[in-house]
């Protein structure tokens, strides 16, 4: 087993570089007078969410590792660790990430964990660090199990996942407009991910990719950034607090409140937990699909546009 797979997680090693890049982004925005916005409480909340996520992962990460090791141990064949299997593992992790991410956005149980990452109205490098504290609870790790069953060692999977997350750091910025066309076609970029973080109706539920944007293009969820509809960042209903504990838990509180209302059927209670975010048994809230439909009703000329 290569030593680098057994040491400190690669994301922890990258943390000082994250900090340096955030400082560089702040200075560049000041010098250029454009390319993003920073607000101190928002940025501090984002970094605190990242610290909390690291601590929770440190405490509970063994559960995911144990699950993946159990799957690996019953795999019919164990693959060696080399460049070829490393690259294959990296690609498979990215496909699995796409589907986990899609689940996070399409089921409220997954969204309750992931909403934290979307809860800032800013889009800068600190937003990348605004991570969930309850990833384990979401069950997303189950989608990595098939990769372990193929014979990829969980430590190699963890390393590839770490690389995936590190790649995702740099594109949380408005500093970079577009990259070369070939790169935009294959890779996830600042432009593609700005779309993902936007709450404009056409951009909701799109661009789930981690590293390779090709998965969105293949599975029909790709929407390109438009100059005539600049992304507005944040949630459909933005949070009114910077308190990290409330940011981390608010959607679970909402689920409990909604699912425990009087007079609901069992099906309605389950829908409040697992159906798409915004699902409601009455007219109280709107899902992404309803928001898009309302937008098209107001702007029929945009019917059929990507994302609508």
């Amino acid at each position, binding site marked *: 087993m290569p030593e680098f797979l057994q040491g400190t997680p690669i994301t922890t090693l990258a943390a000082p570089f994250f900090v340096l890049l955030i400082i560089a982004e702040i*200075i560049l925005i000041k010098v250029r007078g454009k390319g993003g*916005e920073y607000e*101190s409480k*928002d*940025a501090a909340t984002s*970094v605190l969410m990242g610290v909390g996520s690291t601590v929770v992962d440190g405490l509970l990460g063994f559960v995911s590792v144990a699950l993946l090791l159990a799957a690996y141990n019953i795999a019919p064949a164990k693959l060696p660790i080399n460049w070829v299997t490393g690259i294959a593992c990296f690609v498979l992790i990215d496909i699995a990430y796409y589907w986990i991410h899609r689940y996070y956005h399409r089921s409220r149980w997954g969204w309750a964990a992931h909403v934290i990452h979307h809860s800032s109205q800013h889009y800068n490098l600190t937003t990348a660090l605004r991570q969930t504290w309850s990833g384990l609870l979401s069950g997303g790790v189950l989608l990595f199990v098939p990769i372990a069953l193929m014979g990829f060692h969980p430590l190699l999977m963890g390393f590839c996942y770490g690389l995936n997350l590190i790649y995702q750091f740099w594109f949380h910025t408005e500093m970079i407009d577009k990259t070369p066309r070939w790169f935009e076609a294959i890779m996830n970029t600042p432009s593609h991910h700005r779309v993902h973080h936007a709450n404009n109706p056409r951009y909701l539920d799109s661009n789930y990719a981690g590293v390779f944007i090709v998965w969105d293009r293949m599975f029909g969820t790709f929407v390109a950034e438009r100059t005539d509809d600049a992304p*507005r960042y944040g949630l459909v209903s933005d949070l009114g*607090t910077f308190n990290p504990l*409330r940011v981390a838990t608010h959607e679970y509180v909402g689920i409990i409140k909604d699912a425990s209302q009087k007079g609901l059927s069992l099906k309605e209670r389950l829908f409040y937990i697992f159906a798409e975010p915004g699902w409601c048994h009455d007219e109280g809230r709107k899902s992404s699909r309803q928001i898009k439909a309302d937008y098209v009703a107001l702007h029929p000329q945009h019917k059929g546009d990507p994302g609508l």
Partner: protein
Amino acid sequence: MHDYIIVLVPSLVAIIIMVVLIKMTRLEHLVRFDDEAPVRDTMDAHFEGQAIERIVLSEDQQSALVFMQNGAPPVLVRAFGDRMVVRVLAPKAIKDLSGEDTQLSIALNDFTWPRTKIIFANAAARTNAQSLISTSADHSKEASSHA
């Protein structure tokens, strides 16, 4: 424990450096409602196509009440750092509505929303707004009971 100190201490130092840098570079422009323009902009983004009857700005320039046409419930807009947050004051959303002198206090059934105080120019304006919010809530309750 030692591992966590290794994570936490540098992180806290990084946060302090970042906040100081943001303040020093004067990058943040905190929202103040000097006039109706920012409120109208955010209403347009959130409630496109819905007609506004009138806007009442809080004297502390930190919040605004927006009364809508066609009997739609009022909307509360609040400054949130350099951004704004909005909530529809539908009957189910309001936990407590109380007023005293020029100050109207609204608590919502929302885990992420602190109690908001709106300061009016005079007590009569406060009473009027409070009554409009209550009336709107009563109308909505009536409508839902007839539905």
